[in-house]
């Protein structure tokens, strides 16, 4: 195993490792993956889908025999996290789709994660059971009650080994705190609290208390006619438990300090890039809406994703991002049709690698992009079944905009907009990435020399 985190130079080669999910022509909607997340050690990888199910993969221990193959991820546990509900007051169905999964840092033998749909957050405990008590006095081995009259001796039950069983149990249900749809959850660095954000409000919870939460941000105007922006994503600072950020549909980010006041309606910092007014069009605001915001591991930077770009901001500089990367600028000339088929509203996520040197985000046609912040190199890769041979090296892809198309290039008009990569995850310390392509989960690793 090669330690350390790779710099994306031309020497970094990404290889196919695994693909999960069925290979089928028609996709059942429930199977569409809606969130992907590694835990803090990278040992576990969780996915949530539109059917409200969570599947957790665990990395197998690397064997001495197979040094050329890094540990693979195998199914560890799967459970139904959320079920569809009906809101009787509003006569609307509440989707069971898992919007986000966030892991808690491990503090004992069990694993804990938060999963949320539009309305309810749940804390799940995933634990292993490998021993079973045997020799009860009042029950027989099948669990049937014994007739007390037949019991003539007493024995002490003993724990005997059994086949490993992984159980997932809901430990807390945090419900009825959101009028609007939850888009983000974020575990605080104090490991005692977390926040949940919907379109207009952000609530702070204590893990132990489910019937109360503090409202820390409320941007609902008194008159809804005056509504101009909504909250699109929110995250706690990785080290400072008093600091969090939230992004808006207008392309701005606000940083708030909970020490300043109980209700953080007044931001501490306001990040916005000035726009050239002559560039404004019907689409400007839509494509500037931030779909994801992520702190770097260092806590010094935040990364935001809007429809066409990824931006890196320095927390110390509010007036503009320090880096802007074009994800698929060729779509600028397709905005009309992307508006008609609703793709312009797709919410792409973005991720940092473990050392904050490379950032990754998805695109259409099952393409995903990586940008090396140091070398300024970028690469486009594809998650496809054609490249699914074990350890097959992924070939960089290229979209051609102009007239002359080279042999390996694909033209903008041939892109499949139904194949969108919205959710990706990067292992916290190694070059292993998980890419969700509709109903399939791809795992790629960098080439082991």
């Amino acid at each position, binding site marked *: 195993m090669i330690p350390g985190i790779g710099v994306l130079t031309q020497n970094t080669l990404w290889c196919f490792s695994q693909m999960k999910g069925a290979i089928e022509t028609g996709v059942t909607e429930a199977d569409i993956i809606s969130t992907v997340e590694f835990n803090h050690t990278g040992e576990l990888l969780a996915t949530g889908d539109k059917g409200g199910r969570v599947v957790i993969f665990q990395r197998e221990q690397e064997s001495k025999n197979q040094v050329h193959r890094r540990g693979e991820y195998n199914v560890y546990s799967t459970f139904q996290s959320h079920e569809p509900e009906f809101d009787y007051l509003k006569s*609307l169905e509440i989707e069971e789709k898992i919007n986000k999964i966030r892991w808690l840092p491990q503090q004992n033998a069990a694993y804990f994660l938060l999963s949320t749909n539009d309305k309810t957050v749940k804390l799940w405990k995933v634990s292993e059971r490998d021993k079973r008590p045997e020799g009860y006095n009042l029950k027989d081995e099948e669990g049937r009650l014994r007739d007390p009259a037949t019991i003539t001796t007493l024995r002490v039950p003993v724990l005997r080994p059994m086949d490993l069983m992984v159980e997932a149990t809901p430990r807390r249900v945090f419900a009825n705190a959101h009028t609007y749809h939850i888009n983000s959850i974020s575990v605080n660095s104090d490991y005692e609290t977390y926040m949940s954000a919907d379109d207009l409000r952000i609530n702070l919870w204590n893990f132990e208390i489910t019937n109360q939460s503090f409202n820390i941000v409320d941007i609902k105007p008194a008159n809804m006619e005056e509504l*101009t922006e909504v909250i699109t994503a929110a995250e706690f600072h990785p080290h400072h438990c008093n600091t969090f950020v939230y992004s808006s549909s207008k392309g701005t980010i606000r940083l708030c300090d909970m020490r300043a006041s109980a209700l953080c309606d007044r931001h501490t910092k306001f990040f916005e890039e000035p726009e050239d007014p002559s560039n404004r069009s019907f689409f400007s605001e839509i494509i500037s809406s931030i779909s994801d915001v992520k702190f770097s591991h260092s806590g010094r930077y935040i990364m935001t994703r809007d429809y066409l770009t990824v931006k890196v901001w320095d927390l110390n500089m509010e007036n503009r991002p320090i880096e802007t990367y074009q994800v698929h600028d060729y779509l600028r000339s397709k905005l009309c049709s992307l508006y008609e088929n609703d793709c312009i509203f797709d919410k792409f996520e973005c991720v940092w690698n473990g050392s904050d040197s490379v950032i990754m985000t998805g695109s259409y046609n099952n393409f995903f992009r990586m940008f090396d912040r140091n070398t300024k190199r970028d690469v486009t890769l594809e998650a496809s079944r054609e490249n699914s041979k074990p350890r097959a090296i992924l070939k960089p892809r290229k979209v051609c905009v102009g007239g002359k198309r080279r042999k390996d290039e694909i033209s903008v008009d041939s892109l499949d907009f139904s194949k969108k990569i919205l959710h990706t995850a990067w292992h916290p310390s190694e070059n292993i990435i998980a890419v969700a392509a509709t109903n399939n989960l791809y795992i790629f690793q960098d080439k082991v020399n």
Partner: protein
Amino acid sequence: MSQKQEEENPAEETGEEKQDTQEKEGILPERAEEAKLKAKYPSLGQKPGGSDFLMKRLQKGVRGTISYPLTLEPKGMGPVEQKYFDSGDYNMAKAKMKNKQLPSAGPDKNLVTGDHIPTPQDLPQRKSSLVTSKLAG
């Protein structure tokens, strides 16, 4: 930059604008796309980022049955949600969907006759997917 300001008139998107500004990059594709859109849907409001979009986003319900390619409709925040009159309406709609999917086992199977008062047990419950995720398969 000054050249842009001279012909600045966002209210009028015409083909001529495209020809006039052929040499300018950047804003051109977006404006051209905007012109296309306005030509198709002349009733589209001037202020896209305003209340309409956001209100739709806040009120979205379940996305019903999404199928690709998505249906084309001049609107904002995603596929049109299905709003139900009440829970009975919701359950009837779900039952109808189930009927469509099943090969018909006789026309009178799910008919609720006039003199049968449905009880909670009779109402078809929408069961979430009890099938294990294919990722775990």
